[in-house]
């Protein structure tokens, strides 16, 4: 079982460190020590897949002070190929209709998780 710090380090190595439930095989990213699907505590560390589809999204014009230079950018909830769901930022948005679009992991650092449109 890992901590947020290990997750942030995994991003720098180009990986998405998450969890998998040994009981129901549910996979997720956030620090939950009990399976969000079945409640089991029998969980393990795992790397999540790095490709997926946009399930829902927004495009932000008004952004926090520290993201001023990046606006507008999208924030999406992405269903990865292994079924887990994550949230990431997507930059260089030209098209407003992003539902169902294929995306891949670009990088992760102190500005969180960045995916790109395929």
């Amino acid at each position, binding site marked *: 079982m890992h901590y947020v710090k290990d997750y942030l380090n995994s991003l720098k190595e180009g990986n998405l460190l998450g969890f998998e439930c040994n009981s129901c095989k549910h996979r997720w990213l956030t620090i939950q020590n009990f399976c969000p699907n079945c409640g089991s505590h029998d969980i393990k560390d795992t790397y999540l897949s790095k490709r997926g589809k946009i399930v829902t999204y927004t495009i932000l014009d*008004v952004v926090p002070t520290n993201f001023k230079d990046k606006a507008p950018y999208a924030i999406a909830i992405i269903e990865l190929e292994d079924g887990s769901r994550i949230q990431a930022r997507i930059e260089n948005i030209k098209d407003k209709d992003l539902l169902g679009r294929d995306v891949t992991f670009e990088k992760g650092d102190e500005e969180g998780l960045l995916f790109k449109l395929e």
Partner: protein
Amino acid sequence: MKNVYVAGVGMTNFGKSERLGRELALEAAISAIEDAGIEPKDIDATYVSSAFGIGENQVHVGPLINSALGIPDRPSLTIESACSGSSAAFHEAYVALSSGFYNIALVVGYEKLTMNSTPENTRLFAMASDFWYEGLNGVTFPGLYALMATAHMNKYGTSEEMLGSIAIKNHRNGFYNPKAHFRKIIDMDTYLKSPVVAYPLKLYDSCPFSDGAAAIILINEDAKIKKSELVKVLASVRSGSMAALQDRNDYTGIPGAKIASEKAYKYSKTSPEMISFAEVHDCFTIAEVMAMEDIGFFKKGDGGKASLEGITQFDGKKPVNPSGGLKAKGHPVSATGIAQIVEIYDQMLFRVDKNRQVSNPEIGLTHNVGATGGSVTINIFRRLK
């Protein structure tokens, strides 16, 4: 359990204020004490809520309020629950009074935000998300609700005009509320042309950052007070949802709101059909749609349509947010939950402007959400004749 009643209310103007948060809280507290016809020394315990006190270099505000009221020996509790702090404070007071441990409580919520720029407040508010998995990526609160809006619009065909009808209604009601942040009537064209904040949400879908405070005096049946105009608390229920949006199965509603309202109906022996009017957490127009569906006023997916049809106008079949809601009345986050109860009380005493007075305010409901639903409070109140 002992019966619990709201015995008096107070509220500052919502909007931009030059005053300190603690001064606003004190003003609201004193009005509630006067309205209830009691003295500060009658108060057994004080419950205070604020979320961003740190921005004013001031936390632990409970003792400041009690000291200023001349009752420094009374216990105080200072509570944070994102945008639902004073509802959480209300609930704790309700639990203590219904158990009989205390008989009279002061509950006050306040926030002071307008000294910060919008990007700075936006950054601060993102701290109420699951920060390392949401806020860190650059998401904002309008953004989190926009994720829900996209999902709702896509799944149920909720349209821009439907969302617009909520903004127009709440601005209209706010126009007749002398304490509202915005007293400005808007039309559909103004709504549609307003700048995008977090696509698909625009300026007029959003509540503002407001300063303000609201307070109530809550009593149980053993309290000895003279005032007879009381509003009975039929139920106060809190629940929650997975903190990060990505960890939920569905983004078109708030699971904790559904759970809390179902319990609240059960405890109060009421049903959505029996509720005369509601104050709901419309931090964004889509949040009012989801609220009305989660509390069972309308079938899942029908909230937007119901609003466009006018059912939720103050003189419609199911009035929602006759105060102007967070949208127009304003959203000094930790003041909001109590401000909703102030509206229920004032409506039940028939003391609001006739242009937003609900005709038959027998049973009222408040729905207050912290962050994206990590915390939810549902309260149900009854008018006493």
